[in-house]
């Protein structure tokens, strides 16, 4: 295991070392201490390694991640796992705004709450939040799954494309073109898998599914007067 004191070594040195890791690296487990809310920790990794961060981080932790498993023993600032491609990011605490934004793949798990714009413009990532999420979450989300074990804030799934949203608790309000949908057996199966991957003991049957009503997909001729 490699241990990195971020306050001593600095961010550049850490991220350069992480970027040097290739497919067949032997240095598979990394520990980062004293993150102290610093930004851009463990961004842009492309190797099957495990990175354990002991403490809370700032903006963009684990952004653009490919393959790596990143565990944060604390809370994260805005944009955690932004544009993740694959791998897994697990946050023990809370996440600030736009967690998992634009993510293409992989799994983001937030064991606390996530604030506004969680999963905004997600493009294939799976996000599981054990707590609640804030307003404007999954705005223009294109594909992937957002699972919320608590409640969702205002305007959930506004202008949604084909991402699937599952909420166990209440939804304060749905955004434009987002509607509740039927839970079919394949959705229960999907939730079973995502919840077990996220160490969450919630029952799939307790969730409601929300998706796109698809009324914004094509121009509606009745609106032509507005232009």
């Amino acid at each position: 295991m490699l241990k990195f004191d971020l306050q001593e070594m600095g961010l550049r040195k850490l991220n350069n070392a992480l970027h040097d890791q290739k497919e067949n690296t032997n240095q598979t487990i990394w520990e980062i201490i004293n993150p102290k809310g610093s930004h851009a920790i463990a961004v842009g990794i492309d190797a099957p390694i495990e990175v354990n961060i002991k403490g809370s981080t700032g903006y963009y932790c684990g952004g653009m991640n490919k393959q790596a498993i990143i565990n944060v023993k604390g809370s994260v600032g805005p944009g955690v796992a932004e544009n993740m491609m694959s791998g897994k990011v697990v946050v023990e605490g809370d996440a600030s705004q736009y967690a998992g934004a634009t993510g293409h793949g992989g799994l983001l798990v937030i064991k606390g709450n996530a604030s506004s714009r969680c999963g905004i413009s997600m493009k294939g990532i799976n996000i599981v939040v054990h707590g609640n999420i804030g307003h404007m979450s999954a705005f223009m989300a294109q594909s992937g799954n957002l699972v919320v074990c608590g409640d969702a804030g205002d305007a959930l799934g506004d202008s949604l494309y084909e991402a699937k949203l599952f909420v166990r608790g209440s939804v304060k309000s749905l955004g434009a073109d987002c509607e509740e949908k039927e839970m079919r057996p394949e959705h229960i199966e999907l939730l079973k898998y995502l919840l077990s991957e996220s160490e969450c003991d919630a029952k799939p049957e307790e969730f409601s599914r929300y998706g796109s009503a698809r009324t914004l997909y094509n121009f509606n001729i009745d609106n032509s007067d507005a232009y």
Partner: protein
Amino acid sequence: MCGIVGLFLKDASLEISLGNLLSEMLVTMTDRGPDSAGIAIYAQKESGRSKFTIQSDDSGHAFNDLHKELTKSLGCKVNVQVNNTHAVVTLDEGATNKFPEALKSINPQIRIMSLGSSLEIYKEVGLPKNVIQRFNISKMSGRHGIGHTRMATESAVTTMGAHPFNTGLDQCLVHNGSLSNHNSLRRRLRREGVHIETENDTEVGAAYLTWKMQNGASLDEALQSSLENLDGFFTFVVGTEDGFGVVRDPIACKPAVMAETDQYVAFGSEYRALVNLPEIERAQVWEPEPATVYFWKH
């Protein structure tokens, strides 16, 4: 951008370290706004005395003998404690209303940064660490304080464009964000007779709150109505004699993190600003909700 910090002490034993803790928090936020910085400190007040903070670019000359001239003009004992480009003036409460006019007639170049009984505001152009050093903020004590480091977007980088802005007796405002309807609101407020000095958007926000309160609103009500009448992005932190308040616009894209322990309540634009506070590992840390007014009082 812009960075905001705030610290409200519950534990009186930390009061002696307030300036030091706030300074460290503000310097950490330098990346968010390196062009000017300011601090509002709520220190002990003397009973029966008012306190003004004043500023002059020519302080060496302007503050010379100022206490004598003010004493003569106001007919009460006036103290002037010079601190770099600023000075703290104390005088009998009865002379409070006459002070601005008296000061203007002695030297119209001197600006009033704050008025009240415990509030002191220090702000200048420059990096937070330089501004803090200039006024020796680290050595100051107090019960609560707020700080701001500015990255100007709406108006010029000047002393008067820096935050905090005084909004009334012992009240001040700092802002992260940008108001988009400040020109029309400034015109409206000027028509109402409100004095607005600069082209700065936050000054309009501050003047709006002052105007609301002069017309009978409480600070809480004024902040509530700011959610309706101010257009744009804002995270506001307001200081009052008893404590501080926080409000974010409904979209809430300007960041805010709070931490609370038995000893203090702290505000930071980023968690980084809070990491060196005592026992931060045990603090309850959360993000204030959008369009919600929060207050902490002693």
